[in-house]
């Protein structure tokens, strides 16, 4: 099986604009349109969280779809499973809102939909070629790549920086 793509964060690129949060909420709305989504009930929720580490670090945090997903094993009703692409999914129909997943997620990326009484998290936008957050990022701080591609990119940037550093 080809290596699946994942969402990676380039930490130095995040501007803290929250565009990814909006795009995520819209993609997870009924209408998939910002203008309608704003007044939808249940209120669409973002599954990515732009956080701040003082003084000036901004970073989007979202589900890592852990290889050894603690949430999936902790779930007391079998609502969380892994797809073939490696996406850890919460099945809202099965979720009973016990919040055990919230208690065991070490990244703090499982949200609680209070109107629905359901847990939710990143599903990597199954209907989209590229996840909405990645698509919305104006600085490409979020990228959608395979692990290999991403580490190659990182190496490329590092070597370019090294070269330019040496070149003065």
């Amino acid at each position, binding site marked *: 099986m080809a290596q699946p793509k994942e969402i990676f964060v380039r*930490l130095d690129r995040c501007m803290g604009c929250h565009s990814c949060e909006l795009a995520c909420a819209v993609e997870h709305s009924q209408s998939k349109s910002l203008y309608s989504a704003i007044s939808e009930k249940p209120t669409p929720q973002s599954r990515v*969280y732009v*956080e*701040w*580490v003082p003084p000036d*670090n901004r*970073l989007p*945090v979202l589900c890592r779809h852990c290889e050894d997903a*603690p949430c*999936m*094993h*902790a*779930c*007391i*009703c*079998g*609502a*969380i*499973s*892994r797809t073939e692409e490696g996406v850890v999914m919460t099945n809202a129909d*099965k979720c*009973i*809102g*016990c*919040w*055990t*997943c*919230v*208690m*065991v*997620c*070490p*990244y*703090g*990326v*499982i*949200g*609680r939909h209070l109107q629905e*009484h359901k847990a939710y998290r990143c599903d990597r936008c199954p209907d989209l070629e590229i996840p909405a957050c990645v698509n919305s990022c104006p600085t490409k701080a979020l990228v959608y790549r395979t692990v290999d591609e991403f580490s190659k990119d990182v190496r490329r940037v590092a070597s370019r920086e090294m070269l330019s550093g040496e070149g003065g």
Partner: protein
Amino acid sequence: MANNERRYVIIGASAAGMAAAEAIRQSDSTGFITVLSEEPVQPYFRPMIPFLISGKKSVADMTLVGQGPYSGTGIDVRLNSKAEAIDTKNQTVTVQGGDLVLYDRLLIATGSRPYIPPEIEGTEAAGVFALRTLTDALAAADCAAQADHVVMLGGGLLNLKAAFALLERGLDVTLVVYSPEVLSQLMEPDDAVLIRDALNKAGLKIMTDCSATHILSQAGGVNGVLLNSGQEMFCQMVCIGKGVFPNVNFLEQSDVQVDQGVVVDRFTACNAANVFAAGDVAVTFDPITSDRIVTGLWTNAVEMGRCAGYNMAGRTTEYTGTFGILNATQVADEPFVSMGIVHTSGTDYETHVFSTRNTYRKLVFSEDGERLVGAVFVGDISHAGLYRYVMREKMDVAKIKPFIIKHTLHYGHLLLP
């Protein structure tokens, strides 16, 4: 012996047993996995029992196999197969009816059963339930359909959830609690104020500081409860939720070491060769206090069961223990999480308490203030897993303490300290 012929036998088809079976299958694609279940029904998610009672979920919704991580194939679950004894020399399990099952690796995952206080008279009457199995739950649901008033004995989480399920069915429910407040195992009375308010508002009648002495019955079954105060309450149904204790009776004749529960090492192995134990039946330890504990939690049982499964299949995996208290749930629209050391009155732990009209939190730090050792969140439980992580990893909290106290910790704080 080659792996592809290895015979894995698991006694118990609930959280620990089924999680172990999955973990074994992950690591060993060809070994024979046999799960012995004393129950007459296919494995199911036991914590969903209250939903069955309330009618929100059906038996089908509770099915375990094929759901969540339980997708492994070639796992032979034998129903109505209660283990009666084990022989660790010959590596056999005697199943009710006399069958002998041979094992190369054995997992004891028999779980626990409800504790029925012997000092209460009349507990054997029809209409008295201890909600443990699906069978119990179905019977209780039938009984509830005929009842107007239920008395619940015990203020723990299981009973509260069941009480709510019955409230949702439109019954009058009275909770009789021996302690001064509900959930006393999970938090201190001050921590439970918001929850108590929500329970009251939801219409649950709660009597604290009292206990039942007799369950009264007549030919048709239960018709009342007599309290230690002398007060008599009429009811048609009684639920007992006074905790659980490990199912170890069948080990009496074996050489497996039992002390409260089955004693295991850090790799979930028993003293007898090729025998492992996990879940409610096993004695584990709390990574914070290092205390030996027996827990009755699905999540813990799964974690330990998976660990045992890996060890049985030859992937040596250390079990890191679990907090004695590790609960998240929502009762009466009030979500809460309680983890680690939360009973702090009379201790020297550094505690930070913050409460508003609709949220409450208590963060407990070690006496030197350098480690987070416990947390209670009520109302707002967001990011609870991060706090659990900080506790379990015994992280030095110097740089993140203000965020912990304010309940604003996020992953970025751990990533970019």
